[in-house]
Each structure stands twice: as C-alpha cells, then as structure tokens.
C-alpha cells in the first residue's frame, strides 16, 4: 500500500448524496480477479451513455477534473455493497482522497485499506470546498494528513478528525495483516481459551 502523507491536487465536485457502490462501479464490472484496471469503469453509468460515449456534462469527463485526485461529495458516500472494487476503481482512476459529510461504514473502512483517505467534514464545509473545486485547475486543494488539515486555495486551513491508528497505518503505508500477525501469540492463547470454554463450536470441515 502506498503511503499517504500530503496530497495537492485537483478536486472534483460531486454534489450528490447517497452515492452508492453500484453507482461507483456497477456490478457487471465486478467480474475481475484483479485489483487494477477498474478506473475506466468508475461511475460508468454517470460517465458514459448507452453507446459507451462519454457524457460531456459529467464532471470527470471535463478538464481539469479528468486528473482529479480528490473528490468532494454529499452525505452517505459509498453506501450499498461491501465491494472493494469501489475504492479500487477510485484509486485506479487516480482518486486518493474523498471529502464528504459522512460515509457508509464498509466503504469508509475499505478506503483506508487501499490508501485512500476519506475525510468527514460538515456539509457546509463540503459545500464551500465544492465551490472551490468548481474553480477548476487553478483551485488545487492540499490535504495534509500529518497535520490533519485541508488547505483551501485561499490558504484557509480546515481541521479534520481521524482515528490515530488509521492515520499511523496510512502515513507509513503499513499493511494491516503484518500488524495483526504481531499479535499471533495472543490469538493462539485466545483460541485455546475458547476451545476449552466452548468445545461445542463445530468446524466447517466436518458436518457434526
């Protein structure tokens, strides 16, 4: 996983609430066995018409937003399925940071696991950032994870909250599994304790 420290880039305004995972990446594109290559299908139905031609009115089909690295949206971003294809598609497109008033839980979680920083900011702040983003290429936003601030084009800094553990993993590009495996002795001890206390719990290898 790539580290996330600071990011300065084009922010794309997507003032929609309840952007669900089917919208981010429709189910018909989930049939891949890889993580990469999904970027072309990001927001497929919003981005392309029935004939597969780009819809010029959709923000990611416009300059400079084709190169957006930050996305700003409204409430409940990423609701719906647990598909990690949603953050994969965003990442493959080039999005490293999403700012919204709130996120669906699983999507929020999945983003961190893929080096994408989801930032929760109040709706009014998101709307102000959306106005910034509408200014286009000259209006780059900076996201500084270490200092936990979003810097607006006018220099104003907006603080955001983030869980310290997730911040640590993201800043250092650390792999969760490696972290958890350091707790292997505790897991061993836990398993032994459960086997003694709940010997009735059957295994999936043999029907009881």
């Amino acid at each position, binding site marked *: 996983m790539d580290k996330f420290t600071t990011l300065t880039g084009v922010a794309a305004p997507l003032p929609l609430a309840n952007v669900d995972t089917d919208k981010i990446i429709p189910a018909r594109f989930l049939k891949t066995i890889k993580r990469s290559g999904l970027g072309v299908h990001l927001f497929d139905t919003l981005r392309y018409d029935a004939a597969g031609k780009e819809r010029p009115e959709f923000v990611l089909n416009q300059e400079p937003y084709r190169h957006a690295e930050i996305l700003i949206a409204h409430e409940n971003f990423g609701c719906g399925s647990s598909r*990690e294809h949603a953050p994969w598609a965003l990442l493959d497109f080039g999005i490293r940071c999403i700012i919204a008033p709130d996120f669906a839980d699983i999507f929020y979680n999945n983003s961190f696991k893929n080096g994408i920083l989801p930032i929760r900011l109040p709706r009014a702040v998101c709307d102000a950032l959306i106005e910034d983003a509408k200014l286009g290429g000259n209006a780059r936003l900076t996201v500084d994870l270490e200092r936990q601030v979003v810097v607006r084009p006018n220099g104003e800094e907006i603080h955001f909250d983030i869980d310290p553990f997730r911040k640590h993993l993201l800043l250092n590009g650390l792999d969760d599994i490696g972290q958890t495996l350091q707790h292997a002795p505790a897991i061993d001890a836990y398993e032994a304790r459960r086997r003694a206390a709940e010997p009735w719990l059957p295994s999936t290898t043999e029907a*009881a």
Partner: protein
Amino acid sequence: MSESRPRTLFDKIWDNHVVERLPDGTCVLYIDRHLVHEVTSPQAFEGLRMAGRRLRRPDATIAVADHNIPTVGPRNPEAIAEEDSRIQVQTLERNVKEFGVPYIPILDVRQGIVHIIGPELGISLPGTTIVCGDSHTSTHGALGALAFGIGTSEVEHVMATQTLLQKPAKNLLIRVDHTLGFGASAKDLVLAIIGKITTAGGNGHVIEYAGEGIRALDMAGRMTVSNMSIEAGARAGLVAPDETTFAYVKGREYAPKGAAFEQALAYWRTLPSDPGAQYDTTVVLDAREVAPMVTWGTTPGAVVPVTGVVPDPATVGDEGARAQMQRMLDYMGLTPGTRMEDLPIDVVFIGSCTNGRIEDIRAAAAVARGRRVAEGVRALVVPGSGQVKRQAEKEGLDRVLLEAGFEWRDPCCSMCLGMNPDKISAGQRCASTSNRNFEGRQGPGGRTHLVSPAMAAAAAVNGRITDVRQLG
C-alpha cells in the same frame, strides 16, 4: 470488562471475541466463521499467495459460488457462457483446492446463496462472529450472531489471521410493538423501518431488533429483516436467540449435536440483552401500522405503503433533497401523485438472500395458486438454495408456480444484481423481492420496486403493483 454493567446482546458477543484491546480502543476481534464467495475473494487469495501466507483456519471457513451462476442450463463452471463469470468461478475452485478451504460445489444440493445456506446448514450459530465479503452478511444476525460484511482486504486479513481490527459499534435498538396485520410481512416491516430511520440511520451502529413484532416472526422473517440492516446503514442486525432460534438450529447439518448442543444451548441462553442495558439510540415502531410497502425511488428508504402515491418533490423544503427526489423520479419514470397501484410491471423477480427461502416461495405460491401471470409479464422464481428448491418441489410449489406461468429456476443470486444472465433491460419496471433498488442494480436502466414475495406474486398476476390484501 466489568460483569456487573448490564450488557446488550451486541456487547456480550463483542466482549467474548476480543483477543486484544489496543491502546487506542481498536480491538483484535476473533472471527468464528468466514464465508467466502467467488466475487470478493480472488484478490484476497492472490494477496496471500504473494505474501507466502496460508489460511489460519480453513476449518472455520467455507466457500460457495453464487453470484455468477446461471439459473438455467447445466450446473458446472465450464458451462458458464460469459467468460469473466466462468473465470471467477473457476478461480474460486482453484483457490479452495490450493488453500484447502471446504467448498460446496455448484452441483451439490446444498449449494445456494451464501446467506441462505449459512443458516440452513447450521454453519451460522448464535453467539458467533460471522463475516463474508458481502454486505448482506447482516442476514445471519437473525440467529443472534454478530455477522457483518467486509471488503476484500479484510477477507484476506481474516484468512491470514482469523481476526479483524475493529472498534465497537454503537447500539441501536429497534423495538417493534404488537404484531403485523393481515397481508404485511417481514419485508414490509423492514422497508417501513428503513423508511422511518432512512438509509443512513444505522451508520456506525449495530441494530438489535426486539419487541413482540420481532419475537412473533419465524426465522425466515427475522432473516429478511436482518438482511436489510445494511440498507439502513448498519453493518449488522441482531435478534436475540430464543426458542424459535433454538428449534431452527437443532438438527442442522453443521450444528452441534447431542451433549454438545445442550452445552451450546446453555451458553446461548445467556446471550439476550440484560435488563437495563443501555442503547445509544432507540426507535419504536407499531407493527399494526405496517402496510404492504413498495419503493418508488432508487434507495430502499424511498418507500410508501402500497395504498400511497408517488411523492411530490415540490413538497420538499431542502433543495438538495428535492433535487435528489427529482433525479430518482426521472430515473424511475414516475410522475408525482400517481397511485402506486397504477404502476404497470414488466418483470417480477422472487428470490435473493432477502426473500429466497422456502417460506417466501410458499407465500408467492399461495398468491399464484389458481391464477395466471398477466399477459406480457415475465415472472421468475429463483430458490435461494438447492435445498429450498428441493423442499418446494416436494410440496408441489413448483407446479403451482409453473401452471400460473412463472419460471422456476435453479438457485443463485439471479436478478438481484446484474451480474449473471438474469437481468432486466433499460426502462423495464420490475417488482422485486431483493434488497436494492439502486440505479442499474438489476441491469442498466432497469427500474426496481422492492416488495415482499406475496406482493411480487400479486404484481405478476395483475400486471401492475397490487395491494395483495385485495386479492383475498
């Protein structure tokens, strides 16, 4: 952990599964059951392979292919016409061999939608933690298990460590007073709940469903409710295990037997929330007020009673909400004020992990019996598993449905999501017993109205949205 503080069902299961609490409050949470399917696992297996890791507990894991399996034709992976689908299923079959994961082959009568077969086989048990790379894992919470969907990175994490890094959720109590009236089902109840608390109402929470209205539901109904917890934004739903639960679990293939069952039972009886346990939020509903429900928009919270009308954006104060409503109406091709019962239907889908159990098929067959699917309507009934299909055929329900003009299919996710050959086309209007009415969910441009199995069957025979209570 203090034993004296009254705890909720969620707290108890959580506490029992904490391996370690890290300084910032994140917990290493032990996972008892990992269900694996073909769509969200390939990249996880690949990750293990690249890191030279194995599964920590293949014996706590079980795999099945469901999303991509066609519901007609030969049931073997080689016969899947669509190349990507075939590769995904074949990849799963290769991976389970390589990593020694128990697998239920497509031809096995026990094959089916992962959330149908977990409970059906007795793999999902009260008091356990269950995860799957699929958001509707919330279904298994109906048994009093803490069950939630995870992403593929977490799938890999569970494979490698049998744990997840999690922080405890908040407790949301949904208390349903009284019992459902004539014609209203568990599906209507959960749609009414989502309509009330909205699709984000459960964010950050685990929902515990309680009250007489929940107690009175059979396990199938409880699973329907818990299944859609995710549609209310909650990762998990829970129903405290009771005699209904124990009777359901007893004798199932993977469930404990004999003395082990008694031992388990003693533990399960300690699980229900303690008197005086605190919830962060409480919502109360009166089941008697729940009518058969129909969604009109493209989120499950956009729902009205079948006797209602398509709402009018002009009545909405907030500009953003008004625009969203208008967008939904445009997509759904609806005009404000139209009576829901006047909406013509092109397709009917009865199935999915929400409503693909035998009880659902019985409800649909009861409406279909002696009636005919309306001219021009395509109606599919897709059992949730091989065992559901076999049971329905034993009861002659397949014949009832076939005689009425329904198609009787083989088990799979089918038309719940546009990922296998069962899709609706652009502009088609579908009464569906599935759980999501998102844009394009059942096929690009398709329009989904979520309903109960009885309501879906009623829509099929009348060719339009119908109040099943009028059919008598």
